[in-house]
Each structure stands twice: as C-alpha cells, then as structure tokens.
C-alpha cells in the first residue's frame, strides 16, 4: 500500500553553526561523556558465578509441558513445526495409548534441533494446548550435534527442571501466566 | 351458538356401540353407498372441495384441493395414508374417534379412496393407541366380512385394502413425508419437497395423506353435501384473499389446569375463554389462568388476555401463534412457572427432532440445554436473546428445515419470550428454582 503524501513528514538536515563546524568542542564533549563513564561502576555480571536476572518473556531452551497426570501435554498437532521458521521441530504422531481416555493422538517422537532453532517463540505461540514453551534456560551446550537434538524425554526433563521454580510459568493461550500443570507448592 | 348438535361425536356422545351393525343402524355407510352408486370419484372430490373442508391435522390445507394434486390418469397404484399418528402433545381427538366409532373413520377412508382412486390405504397408527388399534382392526375385519373392504366393494368396480400400520413412538412420523418414510420401513426422516407426496409419495407412487378427523368429516360432507357443511363454522374473511374459511366443526381437546378436561365438538371459531369456562368447567382450584397453548404445543402460547381469540384457522395467527394446529387447548394457571412450560416443550422437541436438518437437530437440543440451565437457576439475561434468536433461526426463518417441526419447536419459545419476558427475566434475576420437579432423564 502506498503511503499517502499527507502522512509523509519531511525532515531537514540540521544546519551546523560555527561551533559545530569547528568540531573540537563536540569532540571534547564526546570525550567528556566517555570519560565520565570510566568512573561509573561497571554493570557486568560475572556469568558463571553470578546468574543473570532474565525477563519473564526471555526465550531460551524449549520444554514440553506435562499435564496434571504427568503425561506429555502435547497432542502432536504439528502446529509448532508448521509455524517454525527454522524447520527445527520434528514430530512423529501416533494414536495415544488406550489408557489415555481424553486423548486420541500423542507425539511418539518429538525432536527439536536446538542448533537450528532461532528461539523466535513461534512454536509457543502456535501451540493450541500450551504444551511447548521456551524457558529461561539459556546456557545450553553440547559436545556433539546429536547432543543438541532434544528429544521428547529431554524436553520433558527440561520441564521437570523448570517447573516449580516460578521462573517459567505456563503461558496460557489467553496470554496470562498460570501454573496449570505445575506441581503444587 | 347454543347447544351445537355434534356431528362426529354424535354417536360417541350417545354412547352408541362401535360395532358395524350399530353403525349401520345409525345410518352408517350411507355416504359410501351414495358415492358408489350415484357419484363418480371426480364428483366426490368436487363435493369435498366445495365444502371447504380443511385438514384437521394441523396445517389446515384444504382436503379437496389436496386430492386434486394427484396426477390425473395415473396408472396406479395410488395410496392413501391415514395419519393416525396423533403425537402432538395435548391432542387426543383422533383416539376418541378411532376408539369409539371406528366405522365412521373407515367410511371416510373408503370415500377418500374412492375419490382418489387409491387402491390401498395404510392407517399409520401410533403405538400408544393400543385400544384404538384393536378397535380399528376389529372394524376393518368387520368391514371385510361385509364386503365393505376388499375386492369389488358392494359389488361395484371399486376395490380397497386397508391395513393398520403401527408406529413406534416418533412424533415426526406425524409429518406426512416422515410418515411415508416410516411406512416404507426407513427412519422417519421427512422427505424434501418437491416432489410432493401427491406426485411421489409412499413407495414412489402418488399418495394422499389425510388425518383421521378430516376423513371422518368427509363421511358427513358426502352424506349431507357441501352446502350443509358450509353452514357450520366461519366463512372466509373477505379482506384476506388467502383465507379459505373455517367451515365445519372441530373436535376441541381441553386439557391442563381445567376442572373438566375433555374433548368437545364445536363449530370452528369458538374462543378459548368459552371453551374453558363453558366446556372445561373453568380453571381448576378456582385459580386464574395464566395462559394456554391453543392447538398443541407447536402452535405457540397465548396469554390469558388473548383468550377471546376465536379458534379457527386464522384466529390464533392474529395473536402471534402459528395456527389452529390440532385445536388442543391446554390451560396453565397462574401458579405455573412459564419456565417449566417452556422447558417441557423444548424437552419434547429435543427428544422428538428427527436429526436430519442441522438447525433443528442442534437448535432444539441447545434450547433444551439453555432452558434446563435457566430452570436450575444458572440463567443469564443474554440467554433469552439467544433463545429468541435460535428459535427464530431454526423455525421462523422459513425454509431452514425440511419439515415444520422446527417451526413448531421455535414458535412457543418465540411466543414465550415475546409474551412472558418479564416473568422470564424475573426468574433469571431471582435465580428462582422451579416448582415442578425436575425430569430425571432428558
């Protein structure tokens, strides 16, 4: 859609005066700013010793949530892998075990290639049952590529690690944060 | 009209025997003899057409006109389906006719078949009418014995077989195409029209479907002539060109909160108030009436203020009801909760919807669920608007379903919301609980 001429605002380059044209004062001012900063206390967090405080919407490692009965919440609808721009989610669906009365389908295999992932959070947005979420875990390393392919068990174990820490609440479809399947505290 | 001399109920009120001999002794089968000896089938059709006899089953379609829809010179066979599946709640006039004076009905059937050249008549009788079934069966057997049925009836070129076909408790089989489907051994899903049954009905052959009471009337129309028939009832409203008039008498069923529930025969056009006060013995327990159902539950609701409406084929329509229906008046007194009445009605339709068309199948169930919730005190104000809209969209918006059940299901709800809204709102606001005990099973 073309932008209407009325909505275009033209901005002129500022005209520089003598002082500006001499540049020396501007440079001195700039140096002043930088020098001032030298004497300010550093903000560095010493990472391995100090853990950073991440915002609640930080997008780190994925987890697969469990429902109240401890089963994987995912229903293998492939919405996440459809939404994934990096094509890093690989799901194989299967009929749910007969004893799961409320479910017809479940993921037999659920693998996220954490190396391919760009941590955009689309999968989380796409998930209709709040099963996949990005946690605040960011320090993710591995020695091999295979190690970075997170399968269902590994992703569920991420849930086990992060559930109950209050750092990574379940983000429900409504956008609210809840503790739907978190273990009772 | 002081002391109307009953026609259809004449013998019944007199306590006469239903047997063939007694019927003949009272002048029975004269009309048949007359028709077979003096009249051609076309003449019979003309008489009925001229009489302005309208179907008593609910829709009020002129009976003679219906017969003329049959394809002329059809090689046959042509069938007559007699609709004795009187499932409209609060209605029982056909049962009385069949129970107590089966030959009157049978004569009507014979006449109709003669007029329409039908060779087989199936009486689709609802299962609940066990005594009527047996009574009719006995009458048929007697008729076969007296050569009133079978080959060459009364020695004339007219043969007819009449079979009783018992239903199995489905309201929708009272709809003519539903009845035909059911007769054919399928589920009673009404058929799409066109083709109309007169062109392609039972077993893909031309078929006439008539109500018991209509056929009983035919007997007397043929017997006494169209002009006599036109002296009874109400002539057409000259201002309304589409009005075919309401001639003849009608069996009015009075039930509910009256002292004397009964079935009376009166000329068309009597008012509810007169029915209740004069024939029903007044509202019971000296209470005041709150309203009534003018003609079976699918016709809608009337308030007490509207009781002066004449019950003819046009009257109920003037106060927002669907029509005369079966002229079965059910009164409820002022202690009755309208929510209970509505719930009862919606439960009935949800139970009886055939499930073919989406709006009716889902809509009736939804209305029942909503009303159940309202009854239990969990209603919301917007439920009334939703109810009103659902009622309108399943039924009143014409054509959204194949048959008229949806219209019937929607109409009482629409009426109730229009006429009793303050009470409904009060009920919801007050979180009242119902006075009637809850049904255990939906």
């Amino acid at each position, binding site marked *: 859609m073309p932008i209407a001429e009325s909505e275009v605002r033209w901005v002129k380059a500022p005209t520089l005066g003598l002082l500006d044209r001499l540049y020396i004062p501007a440079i001195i001012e700039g140096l002043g700013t930088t020098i001032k900063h030298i004497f300010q206390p550093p903000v560095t967090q010493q990472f391995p010793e100090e853990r950073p405080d991440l915002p609640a919407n930080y997008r780190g490692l994925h987890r697969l949530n469990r429902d109240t009965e401890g089963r994987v919440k995912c229903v293998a609808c492939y919405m996440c892998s459809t939404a994934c721009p990096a094509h890093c989610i690989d799901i194989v669906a299967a009929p749910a075990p007969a004893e799961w009365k409320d479910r017809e389908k479940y993921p037999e295999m659920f693998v996220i290639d954490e190396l391919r992932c760009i941590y955009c959070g689309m999968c989380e947005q796409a998930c209709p049952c709040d099963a996949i979420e990005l946690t605040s875990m960011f320090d993710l390393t591995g020695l091999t590529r295979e190690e970075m392919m997170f399968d269902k068990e590994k992703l569920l174990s991420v849930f086990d690690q992060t559930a109950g820490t209050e750092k990574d609440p379940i983000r429900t479809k409504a956008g609210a944060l809840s503790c739907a399947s978190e273990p009772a505290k | 009209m002081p002391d109307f001399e009953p026609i259809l109920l004449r013998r019944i009120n007199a306590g006469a025997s239903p047997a063939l001999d007694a019927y003949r002794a009272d002048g029975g089968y004269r009309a048949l003899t007359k028709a077979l000896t003096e009249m051609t089938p076309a003449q019979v059709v003309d008489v009925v057409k001229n009489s302005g006899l309208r179907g008593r089953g609910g829709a009020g379609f002129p009976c003679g006109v219906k017969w003329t829809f049959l394809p002329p010179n059809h090689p046959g066979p042509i069938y007559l389906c007699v609709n004795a599946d009187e499932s409209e709640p609060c209605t029982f006039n056909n049962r009385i006719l069949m129970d107590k004076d089966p030959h009157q009905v049978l004569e009507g059937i014979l006449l109709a078949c003669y007029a329409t050249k039908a060779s087989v008549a199936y009486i689709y009788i609802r299962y609940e009418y066990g005594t009527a079934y047996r009574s009719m069966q006995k009458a048929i057997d007697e008729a076969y014995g007296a050569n009133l049925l079978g080959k060459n009836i009364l020695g004339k070129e007219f043969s007819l077989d009449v079979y009783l076909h018992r239903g199995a408790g489905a309201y929708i089989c009272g709809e003519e195409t539903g009845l035909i489907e059911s007769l054919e051994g399928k589920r009673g899903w009404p058929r799409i029209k066109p083709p109309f049954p007169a062109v392609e009905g039972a077993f893909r052959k031309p078929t006439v479907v008539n109500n018991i009471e209509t056929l009983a009337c035919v007997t007397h129309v043929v017997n006494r002539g169209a002009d006599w028939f036109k002296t009874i009832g109400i002539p057409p409203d000259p201002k309304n060109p589409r009005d075919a008039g309401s001639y003849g008498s009608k069996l009015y069923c009075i039930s509910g909160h009256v002292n004397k529930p009964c079935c009376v025969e009166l000329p068309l056009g009597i008012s509810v108030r007169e029915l209740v006060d004069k024939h029903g013995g007044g509202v019971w327990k000296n209470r005041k009436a709150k309203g009534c159902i003018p003609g079976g539950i699918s016709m809608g609701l009337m308030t007490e203020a509207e009781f002066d409406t004449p019950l003819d084929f046009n009257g109920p329509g003037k106060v927002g009801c669907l029509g005369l229906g079966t002229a079965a008046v059910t009164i409820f007194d002022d202690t009755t909760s309208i929510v209970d009445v509505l719930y009862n009605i919606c439960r009935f339709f949800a139970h009886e919807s055939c499930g073919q068309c989406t*709006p009716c199948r889902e809509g009736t169930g939804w209305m029942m669920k909503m009303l159940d919730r309202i009854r239990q005190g969990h209603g919301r104000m917007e439920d009334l608007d939703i109810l009103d809209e659902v009622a309108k969209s399943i039924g009143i918006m014409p054509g959204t379903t194949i048959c008229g059940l949806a219209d019937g299901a929607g109409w009482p709800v629409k009426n109730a919301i229009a006429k009793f809204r303050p009470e409904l709102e009060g009920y919801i606001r007050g979180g009242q609980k119902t006075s009637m005990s809850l049904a255990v099973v939906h």
Partner: protein
Amino acid sequence: MAVVLINDKPVDIGNERLNLVQAAAKAGVFIPHYCWHPALSVVASCRMCLVEVGDKKPDGTVAMQPRVVPACQTPAKDGTVCITNSEKAKFSQARTLEGLLLNHPLDCPVCDKAGECMLQDYSYRFGKAQSRMIDPKNRPANKPDIGEHLSLFTDRCIMCSRCVRFTREISGSAELQVINRGHHSEIDIFPGDPVNNPLAGNVVDLCPVGALANKEFLYKQRVWFLKSQKSVCAGCSTGCSIHIDHNKDIVYRIRPRENPQAQGYFICDEGRFDFPYINGKERFDRPLVKPAGERSEPAESAVAWETALPDIRDVLKKSASALAAVVSPMLTVEEAYLFAKLIKGFSPQATLYLGWVPNVGKDESFPRDRKGNPVGPVQFTIRAEKCPNRRGVEEVLKHFQGEVLGFDRLIADISSPLPTGGEGAGVRRRPQALYLTAGYPPRLGAWLNDEQTKTLSTIPLLIVQDLAPTPITQTARYVLPAATFAEKDGCFVNHANLAQQIRWAVRPGTMGRTDGQIFLSLLGRRGLIQATKIRQELAAEIPFFAPLAVGDLGEFGVKLG
C-alpha cells in the same frame, strides 16, 4: 438454452440438468454444501446451501420466494434467480454453521482433516469465530474400528449422511447407518458388520469433516505438508484418476480425482491402499550386473549407470538378430514406444512381446445387493485386468511389428525349436537375448511360476527391469531398476481407450532412473526424458495415438480410437 441469474450474473447452463449449486459454480459463485455430493442422492438435510431463490418472469419482473431454499435441491431452470450473498442467505449459512459447531469438539489440532476440512473452511468463510453455547457438548464415544481401514470420530460428525448414502447407493453394501435421532444421532455400523467393502475408503474422502478417518493415513502427516500430484491409478485397467499426496519423496496417500471420462468420483480400496511398495526399502535403485560367464553365481554388484548402460547397449547390439523384448503393460505409452524403438533399432528381426497381463478374478461392478450381485445402473467397476496400459502397449506393438505376441508366446518360442540364427524378415527366431520389463506391484504376487522362470533363465543374456528382487532378477545378467507410476511422466490408455496423463510425484530413490530415461539413454539420446515431447513424437508416428499430439492431455485425458 437456460439462463440462470446467480447473484445478478447471468450464466448460460445450456440444456444441462443442474441444481443451483452446480449452476452457481458455473458462474464462479461457491455455495457451501455438506450433504450434497454430485454422485449421491439429494437429501438437503445439512441446510448449508440455503439461498434465496426467485423466478424471473418473461416481463422482467422477479418474484422471489419468501423462503430460503437449499440450493442443492433446487433445479436450475431458465429464469431462475439465485441470490447467495443477501443478508438472509448469509444469516442462514452462519446459523447453520453455528448449529454444526455446537456439539463439534473443535479438536482441529488433532484432527487429520484439519487443513482440508469443509467445516473449517466454511466456518472461516461463512461462519463466525465465537460459539454462544456455554452448555456441555454431547460427546459420543469414538468408534475406532468400523472397518479395516476406517476409524470413526463420532463427535466430529455433522450428520451429512454422505457416507451412509455412499454405502447404500454406490457400493450397495449398506454397512453404515445412522442410529438414534435428534441431537443424539450418530453414524455407526451394525455390530459385527464392519465397512469392508472394496470401495470403503471413499467414505473418508466423502466425509466433509474429520469424522471418518483412514487408518493407514491417520496421524501420518498433516495435510498442509502434503503436495498433491494429479495422476492415474495403475491398479487396474479402469485407470481411475487420482491425486498422489506426497511429501519429501514419500507417498502418503492416494485420493480419487473426479474424472467423468474415466471412473467418476471414486476409487477402489485396492488402488487407494496399494501404494506402500512405492516407498519400499527393498526396491532397486541402481543397475546390478553379474559377471559374464558366472551365471550360477548370485553375487551381483551394483554399478554406476554410466558404465552399465553402454555395456547393455553393446551386448544387446551383439545379439541383435536373436533379441526378444518383453514390453510390460505397466509401462507408459511413451516408454513402450521408446522401448520398441530401441529394440527394433537394433534389428528389425528383434521380437517384441507384450508382457504378462495380470487378470485377477472377474470385473466387479457396483452397486451390489446383499448377495453380491450387481444391481441397478453401474456406478463403479473394479476391473480384473490389473494393469493400467495393456491397450497402449498393444497399439505400440501393433505399430512396430504388426501383431501382438503375448507372454505365453514368448515362453513357447523359447522352448520351441525355432531357428537361432539366419536371415529373412518375418521369421521369428529363438531368442538368445531377452530384455524383460516388469514393474508389477508386489500385490499381484510372484507373476512367473517356477517353470516359466526356468525357461526364461535358459536364455544366455537376460536383462530384467523390475522394481524389487524376484526369482527372475536372481538369474538375470543385468538388473535395471524400474519405476512405479508415481515416479514417471507419461500416459496410460485404459480399457476404454482413454489416454490419461500420469505425472511424477516422487523421485525413484536417490540413484534411480525411470524406465523412460533408461530407454532414452540406451537409444543414445541425450538429456532428460520429456514425456510430452515423446508423446508428440509418437502421435506423429502412430496413427492410433494421433490425438495425443496435443501434448498435455489435461485433467480428464483424451479419447483414442
């Protein structure tokens, strides 16, 4: 000439007997519908296609009916006026959809139909997002075993009754039924009578929602990942038009494609479910060669195409005068043509035989009554001849050698004391070299009996082109991989001389080549095979195939002969 006004747009429907849904489609207006299907009877029960209808009188006035009517039930006549976008019509459609969704579980995420579901699509186009019902939904139990291939998700059903009508009107087996009534109606089978008729799979396609599911496909892929290719079933000589749904070189599903010239709307389960062999692991994907002179040794070694093909060409050339070739009816017309050209190019004395024509049982036509006898007008036929292109190959053979020699003749010729050498046109010789093409799906079983195999293995030079290892490939000197119908371009000629185009959907393995490509390379022509070009070439050369000169045969194919 009937002219119908659809949303004020006149459309000429000629003398066709159409209903308003079809007439509107001609005008480019889509009227949503569930229960109506062109191949099934009209019940007008879903009430999705409600429109306003009227009549245009000769004097130009329009009389609209007060009612909205189902378009599927209303015949289009001259002067019929149909309005689909009025407030009234839209209101009816929206309310119907609301009704349909009342008791629908809305489990699209786990529903296999999601993505091609008419309920989804119509809700999006004609419905609204929010349900006003807060009461509990009816949740009838699922029936996962209503057929060998079928699973019924009862709660998703919208009671369009298409499936029931299909079993009663098309297959005639009437296994499906509606039980109960009102909002408790469900689709069901009679206990103990699963839907196992040979056309059962079609109910899955007919189901507009995800209620009936194909167990073979259930949960395998989401449909939006699938790519669809228009092709033709190679299961029998009916030549049903199909869609091959595939993803990443795996065929996941075969669906019928409407083709009034071939089979109509449906396909049989045999064609529908017999595709896993295409994805088979055991298939050849490169040439295998046995060292010359060590014929008893089964050890073959895979070789590159670049070395195998010139080798084969050389050995064929050497035995040109006593060369026989078997042209499989599984080949496309183009391939048969190239093959015949190749063989006849070595020597005019080389003999071409028609490959084995599998005949299994008798033609089965539908609908059938309870006892299995065909009744009424035939709606669908499964043919006994289980190959797609006998007619096409026969015509090619007729062109190249004037007569069609069957496979039995080959066996006879090998065993009989025909001369092994010498000159003279028209004299058949005992074959010393045989190039055998096969490519029959494994469903047909071992197509050569032991004796035939033995007879064939007496030939000194045997080249076999087949899908997967069989006894005859064991004895062959050269084994070339064949391709399935899902992997090649070309056309098949069905039993009624209808030439239909098949198009490749998946690739024949990482190293594989299609039969046509092999013949093309053996012919010494360069480049990749272009079926359209070959088709035009043969259309110019063989009069029978002249109509194929159009190149692209379109969706429905071209009638020959």
